């Protein structure tokens, strides 16, 4: 009986500690969303207090008086198009590398993997000049290509390890039926790779949505860039309009929150599979 009671108390104590930590972890996000609905005066007067009413002026200002709407559109285009391009290009390469196992595909694989070690800082300065040379400076095509290029190494790593687990017999049967390699890949193999694709899409999509340094450098100054870059600019420019910046950060966080709640398992799976493969 006492042992049972002791165990019970232990469990409750554990819960209490976890709840306390959860509050600490959640507070900054709650604080951000809450402050977005407060006026500047309210924020300065008492940062912890709940908003008095639903103050929406900062959203209104941000969406009508600034470049923020165009930044939102840019962020959406960059994220969506880059992700679609990654899915069209990278899985094929991973599949061919795994299935056609020769010396040259092995070399290409190592060549791709080497890219995972190269930090963006190591090539950002010439990249800037190169995009200008190709006439890609100032368009969204530049950053999209850079995002696809940056995802090749990790993407191929993920896909090769998953293609390994797909029995070859299915493909052989289709081949005997006269299906081309291209058809075999897109009609038979690619649908089986759904979970990897989902993990790559959510993790890379998030990385692009949140990216700061690359779009800041590569998109032309004087024009709206992406949400995150505009938020950074506003922090410098409107340093006393905190209400407005909070509204901006809230608008950048809420879509992430929604996608996360909807696709939670793919985030977790992506991390776990990425981790075991390094």
């Amino acid at each position, binding site marked *: 009986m006492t042992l049972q009671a002791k165990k019970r108390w232990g*469990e409750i104590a*554990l819960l209490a500690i*976890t709840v306390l*930590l*959860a509050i600490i972890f*959640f507070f*900054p*996000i709650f604080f951000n969303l809450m402050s977005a609905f407060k006026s500047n005066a309210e*924020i*300065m007067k008492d*940062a*912890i207090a709940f908003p008095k009413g639903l103050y929406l002026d900062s959203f209104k200002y941000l969406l009508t008086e600034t470049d923020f709407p165009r930044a939102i559109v840019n962020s959406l285009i960059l994220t969506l198009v880059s992700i679609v391009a990654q899915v069209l*290009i990278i899985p*094929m*390469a991973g599949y*061919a590398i795994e*299935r*056609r196992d020769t010396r040259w*595909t092995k070399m*290409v694989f190592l060549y*791709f993997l080497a*890219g995972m*070690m*190269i*930090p963006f*800082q*190591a*090539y*950002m*300065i*010439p990249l800037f*000049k*190169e995009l200008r040379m190709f006439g890609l400076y100032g368009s969204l095509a530049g950053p999209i*290509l850079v995002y*696809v*290029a940056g995802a*090749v*190494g990790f993407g191929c790593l993920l896909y090769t390890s998953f293609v390994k687990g797909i029995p070859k017999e299915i493909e052989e049967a289709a081949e005997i*039926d*006269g299906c*081309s*390699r291209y058809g075999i*890949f897109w009609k038979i193999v690619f649908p089986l790779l759904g979970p990897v694709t989902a993990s790559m899409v959510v993790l890379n999509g*998030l990385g692009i949505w949140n990216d*700061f*340094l690359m779009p800041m*450098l590569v998109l032309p100054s004087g024009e709206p860039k992406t949400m*995150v870059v505009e*938020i*950074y600019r506003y*922090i410098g420019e409107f340093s006393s309009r905190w209400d407005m*910046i*909070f509204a901006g950060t809230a608008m950048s*966080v809420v879509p992430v929150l929604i996608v996360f709640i909807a696709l*939670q398992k793919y*985030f*977790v799976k992506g*991390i*776990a599979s990425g981790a075991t493969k*390094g």
Partner: protein
Amino acid sequence: MATAVTRIDKPLTAAIPKKKKKWQSYALLFILPSFLIYTLFVIVPTAGSIYLSFTSWDGISEDVRYIGFANFVEIWQSPRVHNALKNTLVMTVSLVLLENIAAIMLAVLVDKVRWFRNLFRSIFYFPTLLSGIVMGFVWAMILNYNFGVFNQILDAIGLGSWVVDWLGNPKYAMISIILSTVWKGAGYYMIIYLAGLQGIPAELNEAASIDGASGFQQFRHITFPLLAGSMTVCLVLSMISALKIFDQIAVMTDGGPGFETETLTYIIYKVGFGELRQGFGTALAMVLFLIIMLITVIQVKFLRKREVQM
């Protein structure tokens, strides 16, 4: 997408020698787009960096002058670079330690707690999904000297004497960045540790418990050693991401006060784009690249060894 044409009547024997050749051209076609984009937008500019690191290019003019190892000699001698390297080292070591300790703690809690397990896991994980800019701004607001929540709480609980300018005071700026980054990063490693914990057979702990081992003893002698695999991965991942920290610094301190929080990644950006010394900036970037390469090579060696053991 190609359409599947069914040609059953085709003789099988004729198809076999042809198949290999066909495969070869397909493999090439499948790999080519990735190969081209990756080569053009990662490898070519990286090669460009190697070249530029031996020049005194300012980033704008046509004047790209070869100056040999002068940039690297300057890196070797410059007190500002030494300071940035020291800051990078302090930040990386503290982050690797704190993030992993926090992550193991969170993973054990989430694994052990009886109620709302998934909710807790999500709450601890969510901060990792925020951009460094957003998260840095929110923390800068929380830690603000005059209006920040943190100082307000300190005041309210009678610790008014602790109130300081967390980001403006050279003594505390680094710690503030480190702790807010732990808040952001720990959840990611928690997921990896959690997967590791769930791979430990429950019988081990049960047996130890019957033998009279306390909770802590079980953790010390069973859980902790069996987490070694997850730990190798987490240590390397956290080390590399700590070396690359940029966004938080840009928003929270801009490398300041003075040069207190200027790290290697930040000085590369400042020197290259702020001070227009891109030759020197790329030389610094090469140093960062070499450090990351070294860590990765060591990691690959370690992982290989572990695989052999298993």
